[in-house]
């Protein structure tokens, strides 16, 4: 089952999608809306995002692209819910920068509280999977807690969605194709097979020192294929069997409006 949240006629609705992409209400009744319709807004599929763990350099080809040795221990950083936007929403490009790039990532969403979780049991703690675009502003990198919050924790720069796919509907996430298209052109391609630290490993690793809770997320990193983004660009991050997450880039002034 695919679970989403939308805003329709000023109401926030929990919905599911059937195999023809029709939206159903919580009783399974059709809402008369199709996933491709424009008359509603996609929200974060996770209603109450908790701690967002994200992985740096978790694909060997991406690490070499950035001239780093693949890490021997996961490079984990934290993001916050202020970064999250939904499918078909906007993300902004800060003024006066040279390089903002997307990062298409598989996200595991935690569904059950746990600590000291063993690898063999790890997937019991996963509610499902979604997709994020973990944008980065490379101009702002500094070598302190790198990647620093100024690079990775900005408003709107983590589109998430479109929906959450139940864990049992994707029994094997270890060989899913990831692609990113910018304005229709294929710019990034990889497979979760090339992940250095996989989802069960990461759950065991993180829960060794931290309690994981429902709504926590693990964004598992991105493969090779970086490209700069400009206002007006439309970026589509797709993960096989999960879905496709689309985002339009706007300027900082457009995004912040009266707060600019």
């Amino acid at each position, binding site marked *: 089952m695919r679970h989403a949240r939308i805003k329709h006629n000023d109401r926030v609705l929990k919905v599911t999608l059937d195999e023809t992409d029709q939206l159903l209400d919580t009783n399974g009744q059709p809402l008369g809306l199709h996933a491709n319709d424009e008359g509603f807004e996609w929200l974060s599929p996770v209603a109450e995002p908790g*701690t967002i763990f994200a992985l740096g350099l978790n694909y060997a080809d991406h690490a070499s692209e950035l001239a780093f040795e693949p890490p021997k221990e996961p490079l984990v950083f*934290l993001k916050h819910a202020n970064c999250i936007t939904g499918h078909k929403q906007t993300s902004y490009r800060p003024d006066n920068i040279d390089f903002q790039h997307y990062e298409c990532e598989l996200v595991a969403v935690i569904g059950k509280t746990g600590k000291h979780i063993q690898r063999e049991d790890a997937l019991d703690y996963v509610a499902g999977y979604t997709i994020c675009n973990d944008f980065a502003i490379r101009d702002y990198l*500094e*070598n302190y*807690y790198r990647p*620093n919050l100024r690079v990775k924790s900005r*408003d709107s720069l983590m589109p998430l969605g479109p929906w959450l796919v139940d864990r049992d509907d994707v029994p094997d996430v270890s060989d899913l194709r990831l692609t990113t298209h910018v304005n229709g052109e294929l710019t990034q391609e990889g497979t979760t097979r090339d992940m250095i630290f996989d989802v069960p490993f990461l759950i065991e690793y993180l829960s060794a*020192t*931290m309690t994981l809770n429902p709504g926590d997320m693990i964004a598992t990193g991105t493969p090779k294929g970086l490209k700069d983004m400009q206002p007006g660009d439309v970026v589509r991050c797709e993960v096989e069997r999960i879905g496709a997450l689309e985002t339009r880039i706007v300027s900082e002034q457009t995004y*912040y409006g009266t707060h600019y």
Partner: protein
Amino acid sequence: MTENLVSSKLVCVALNDTTQRAAMAAAFTDAPYKQAPTQPVLYYKPRNTWNTHGQVVPWAIGGDGGAADAMVVGGSLGVVIGKTACRVSAEQALSYVQGYTLVADYSLPEVSYYRPDIRGKCQDGTAPVGPQVTTADAITDPDALEVLVHVNGACQSHFPLSRLHDNVANIIAKLSHIMTLQPGEVIATGFCGERTPVQPGDTVAIEIGAIGTLVNTLGERAA
């Protein structure tokens, strides 16, 4: 048990002590840092770390999965946001503050600032906040406050906030240009660069005279 005072997020600022920065000036120019930080050095204490006045702070877990060899504590002024702060100026920043509290950051020793220190900083129960919020109108100049750290009754650290590299208003302003701050979110504006070592069973009191005293006890090493 007192109420959890943090809503949504707790952001801390590292390397915000001018004395520490002066001592590290040479190290900043070496690998892996290569230059001194130009922006506040920020880290989150995520929700599994949140704790309250009077509670036990569990002894941390080390890299081998056993009890950590050592822990340290830092105390900070905690700024509690009162209204949504999006891209505010330093001049306006303090008007977005609802009040002030205390934040204790228990962690593994700060060995390196190069990579996010998830194991060091994000262990369960290592971020007590409290004991209460003192309203902003009672504090005319937050930069004039001093943070004391007492361990088992003896004062081990004395940090006047005049030593902050970025003062309280600057931190709020700079942070609000990265992330919109929401009511109830808490910012720990800076710690004495020299963190205070603690042992299992220690009682630690973080004190700012005009705000109060945040007391916690360290748990025992897990068997």
